[in-house]
């Protein structure tokens, strides 16, 4: 499904990603973990077109994504959420979700100004899709509120909804439960499982909450300083000595 091949990205000498490769299969939930500054979010930024890597290739179903503009990558079916909520603060929940539908809604500027026939039909059809997502993520009570006024946990959920509204082929979740309390984390985990089961969208998950990662992920990749340390099932990775070293430091020889 997604192939990430030997990607290298550096910022003036700092190697953010140094030769990372992985693949994500259909219906797979692939997790990327690693200490702070390991390059996890950079991997997401390379996939979604925000950064352009110096070396390597990213392909989705055989289509080359490398170096494409973010909006092109989005149109090809990659949706993402952000580590720090990047919602459109002044728009309502509904409008934010409608923005996720942006490239599914087809009419031009002149049709928009006239607001007859086509524009109205398209808006209504896509509004119905958005209402389905509102139901799916249980956002009904906040639909009409500007996102900026909502609690943090709900904002994170709206962001997931906005990504789902894009009807993506691949979903990138950047720390979906960062800064959440236990209850909010459990809610989010439930929604992630629902997305898998009901929508069957493959996901890449970046997360520091190890409990969540180990419970949800099919495979886990550990990166440290932009270098892949280990890839495998959660159980394999947990006992890998290189991973322990990356997280806990060198073990003194006894």
């Amino acid at each position, binding site marked *: 499904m997604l192939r990430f091949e030997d990607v290298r990205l550096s910022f003036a000498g700092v190697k953010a990603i140094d030769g990372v490769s992985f693949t994500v299969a259909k219906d797979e939930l692939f997790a990327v973990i690693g200490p702070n500054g390991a390059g996890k979010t950079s991997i997401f930024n390379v996939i*979604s*077109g*925000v950064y352009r890597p110096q070396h390597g290739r990213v392909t989705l179903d055989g289509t080359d994504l490398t170096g494409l*503009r*973010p*909006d092109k*990558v*989005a*149109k090809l079916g990659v949706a*993402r959420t*952000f580590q720090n909520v*990047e*919602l*459109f*603060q*002044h*728009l309502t929940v509904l*409008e934010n979700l*409608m*923005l*996720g*539908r*942006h*490239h599914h*809604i087809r*009419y031009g*500027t002149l049709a*928009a*100004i*006239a*607001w007859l026939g086509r*524009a*109205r039909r*398209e*808006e*209504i059809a896509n*509004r*119905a899709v958005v209402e389905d997502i509102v139901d799916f993520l249980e956002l009904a009570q906040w639909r009409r509120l500007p996102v900026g006024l909502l609690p943090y946990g709900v904002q994170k959920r709206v962001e997931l909804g*906005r990504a789902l509204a*894009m009807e993506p082929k691949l979903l990138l979740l950047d720390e979906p439960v960062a800064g959440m309390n236990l209850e909010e984390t459990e809610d989010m985990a439930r929604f992630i499982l629902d997305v898998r089961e009901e929508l069957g969208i493959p996901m890449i998950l970046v997360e520091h909450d190890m409990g969540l990662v180990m419970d949800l992920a099919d495979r886990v990749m550990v990166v440290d300083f932009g270098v892949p340390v280990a890839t495998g099932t959660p159980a394999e990775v947990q006992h890998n000595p290189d991973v322990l070293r990356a997280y806990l430091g060198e073990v003194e020889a006894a």
Partner: protein
Amino acid sequence: MRNRPLLRTSYNQELALLDTTSKKVAVGILLAVGVALPWLVEDQLLQLIGLACVTAIGAIGLNIVTGYAGQVSLGHAFFLAIGAYTAAAIAGDPDARTIGFGVREILIWLPAAGVVAALAGVLVAPLATRLRGLYLAIVTLGLVFIGGHVINEWSSLTGGPGIGRQPPAPTLLGYDLNTGDAFLTRDQKLYLLMLVLLVIAALAARNLARSRVGRAFTAIRDRDIAAGVMGVNLARYKTIAFGVSSFYAGCAGALLYVGIGYFDPTTFNLLLSVQYIAMILIGGAGTVSGAVLGAFLITLLPRLIREVPSFLPFISNSPAESPNAYQLETVLYGVLIIVFLIFEPRGLFGIWIRLRNYWKAWPFSY
């Protein structure tokens, strides 16, 4: 469902612009007053209100690029000038000193003025895709100075500073709007023309704002990186914003001086751009009704201040004495901007929202 006026049973109802009875009534009354106004007030004041309508079209235009799409443009005077001179040249007297082609039909010169200005806007837009915030503001500021220089020197088109030229004299499908007749005076005709154009412009802007294009504009304003990741082509939508905004500016520029019957190239200076910025700040950035309110306030302010000396005798109406009404106007103008920025950044529109919410809950505080 008769007893639940706010219950919506279709998306169509919810997408309506006038979605409550009170909005329908209010807009109906406003329109009725607007249409009846020519028979209620004297022609001199009517001309000023007509000017306010045209100014409002220009302010709506600036609000599209600055209020909705968040691209601060100080170059609005440049696009107003392009519209004004395109229209004046197309409709101008072919035998006069300045360029003129003698096509007085408003259905030709008004869209032409808009389209030429929009093309200029589209040419400028690549700057906005490279720069943002203050840098873009400074570059658009440059446009005003370059444009100002060109129109000051190009006297075969503009008549030159201090001399100027005539604005277009409109006819609509052969009906002369520029002279009075048995039914309506000149000022009454022009006012009605401008009122109708303002209603069309405002409606078009509202439609644009609630569409996918308008949502893309606000997305770019709030978070441009996230907007890109959501599939919004930033360059494309910034170009559309500049194009539409300049179209409005071009149309407004073409009509601005029709009432007065004369205009001078030195009018299109930085101060004019700043006035338009002030209108949308005071009225409420990112709302159509705010832009209209702001435009009316700024246009009618000088006229209102002329009335002050009759209440406060120590303020003089003569520019020779101090303090006089002209000084008061300048001071008030600055004070208004500061007060609004500090106390109500949402402008007059925000005050309206607060009033509305207060009376909705009255007599309880929430």
